[in-house]
């Protein structure tokens, strides 16, 4: 990862490369400048956490990286692909191919069982039903949820729901997993279990991970932590050691 010009490894293409990203929300006469020139490079296989106070812009950054929202200014390259002025169809295809999402509130489809929820990204890749159900069962098995495959989300515990969501994020073999407070709705034991799973996936499958969190012990389990304050990256910490202080 690098944050400044000149530190970039020219032989290796970053998985995520954003420079001078700005985002302003306009509601009526009010303008809210949420991101104020974010520069960030994340290499493939890195596991990064993003911390910051509420309203600092960390979720907005995650949404822009997830092509769920557009940036107003700056440049965003995902695996070398320029993300700019994409139509909805193209954006959906890129999300399906490159990205997996894990949300604080799980965001499972309430009337679909665990297996159907996990299989959903494959449905949009036009994988045949039999095949995608079999793959979904494999992923649920990896999460220790095979017996719960035919249960609806409201029949699962918080930890189980999040594991279903992780399985769903993984099933499309994404390059990047974006997790927005993945442990925010879980107790501390379950939170650690979920982090164990994410860490293992990161190590074994070399999937790049960006985790937005409020919890210090969650961020400590990632390789690096980015702190965002008032729409700007103010600090980057590596293995509990500050590698740079942007504000200083």
């Amino acid at each position, binding site marked *: 990862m690098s944050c400044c010009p000149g530190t970039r490894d020219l032989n290796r293409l970053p998985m995520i490369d954003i420079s001078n990203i700005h985002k302003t929300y306009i509601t009526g006469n009010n303008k809210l400048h949420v991101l104020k020139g974010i520069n960030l490079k994340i290499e493939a296989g890195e596991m990064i956490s993003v911390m910051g106070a509420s309203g600092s812009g960390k979720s907005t950054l995650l949404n822009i990286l997830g092509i769920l929202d557009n940036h107003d200014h700056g440049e965003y390259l995902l695996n070398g692909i320029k993300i700019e002025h994409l139509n909805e169809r193209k954006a959906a295809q890129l999300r399906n191919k490159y990205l997996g999402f894990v949300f604080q509130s799980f*965001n499972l489809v309430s009337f679909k069982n665990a297996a159907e929820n996990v299989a*959903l990204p494959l449905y949009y890749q036009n994988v045949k039903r039999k095949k995608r159900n079999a793959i979904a069962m494999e992923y649920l098995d990896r999460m220790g949820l095979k017996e719960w495959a035919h249960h609806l989300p409201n029949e699962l515990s918080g930890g189980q729901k999040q594991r279903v969501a992780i399985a769903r994020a993984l099933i499309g073999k994404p390059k990047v997993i974006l997790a927005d407070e993945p442990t925010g709705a879980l107790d501390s034991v379950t939170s650690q279990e979920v982090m164990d799973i994410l860490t293992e996936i990161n190590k074994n499958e070399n999937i790049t991970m960006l985790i937005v969190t409020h919890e210090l012990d969650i961020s400590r389990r990632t390789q690096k932590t980015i702190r965002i304050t008032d729409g700007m990256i103010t600090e980057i910490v590596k293995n509990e050691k500050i590698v740079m202080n942007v504000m200083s």
Partner: protein
Amino acid sequence: MFSIDRWQEIYLTIRKNKLRTFLTGFAVAWGIFMLIILLGSGNGLENGVKEQFKGGAMNGIWISSGVTSVQYKGLKTGREIKFTDQDYKLIKNSIKGYDRISARLFLGNVLVSNKNEYGNFFVSPSHPDYGYIKEIKVLQGRFLNQIDIRECRKVAAIGEKVQAQLFKGRDSIALEKYVNIKGVPFKVIGIFRDFGRGDDEQKRIYIPITTAQKVFYTSNVINQISFTTGDASPEEADAMLRKAKQTLARSHTFSPDDPRAIDIMNKSEDVRRFNALFAGIRMFIWIIGIGTIIAGIVGVSNIMMISVKERTKEIGIRKALGATPASIIGLVMQEAIMITGFAGYVGLVLGVGLLELISKSMPPSDFFRNPEANLSIALGATVLLIIAGAFAGFFPAMKAAGIRPIEALREE
């Protein structure tokens, strides 16, 4: 667009919202049900009125002699016009494009007998073409022919009720036997059925007009001239009738505008008038029916709109996971078409069923019979349902496609 997966998705959504789907479908089913009942009733009314036209070619024109009611060229009103064979020949030679033509003589109700069986029947001397003009169906033997006319044969075609009344028991077959008409024996050459209204039509006897003029001493008098207009257009048929009127007016010196000198029954004109009336009624019914269906469609559209609103988060999740706008539009529209189509068919089947029930249980009357919904109505309703479903789903689908995943995922 119509994959099994999509159907499964729709099934899951419907299963989740059973009551809402039922109520939505009910509105459409009711609309189609009402449309079918209205159209079927319209058909019943039309069939009833058409029944009134039976017993004669739809393109037939009958001209009977009457009494003048307008002074013309110094001649007084109240003059009785008497047609003769000469008029028949004049009409035959002057009008162009007719199909069949016949003269008729009215002998009225005449005592007819077979041995000891007697009855009063309407004896109608005519030319052979009258069988065609009157749309008579010969059941046994034949109708009159040109040889009968030329040779003034004493032959008769009798209605099936005449046979039933005069030929009973062992002697029930009339063909080749003789009946006495006003004391003159006529050989029965045919038994016919007339599809005209009432029993009287079946109680007729047709004999050659030339024979009747001779044996009953009516000289060359005739009472009616009738002809069919073939494939002529309404304008051409009108021209033929105009020409016939002018010919007769000239021949008998009465005003062509005198409404009572001759009595005209123009069936094609009546049929045209009724067809125009029923076309209007049909259009009116479709307008009401479509109006009812539109109310149903608005209902479906409204419910789909609410459904899309309720499913905003789900749609957001789907989009985050890779659903394209086209797949979301397809999902919503297919659901709307499915609900509209299925419910509409239920309404269609119930409507057709009720019409069948009415048709079977209600005695046919002069003005309402056989209320039916024919294949073209069913096909029309099917096309209408698909269009209606697509229309009902279009706006909600566009709204769903326009949902931004980021906003949808924020929804609680």
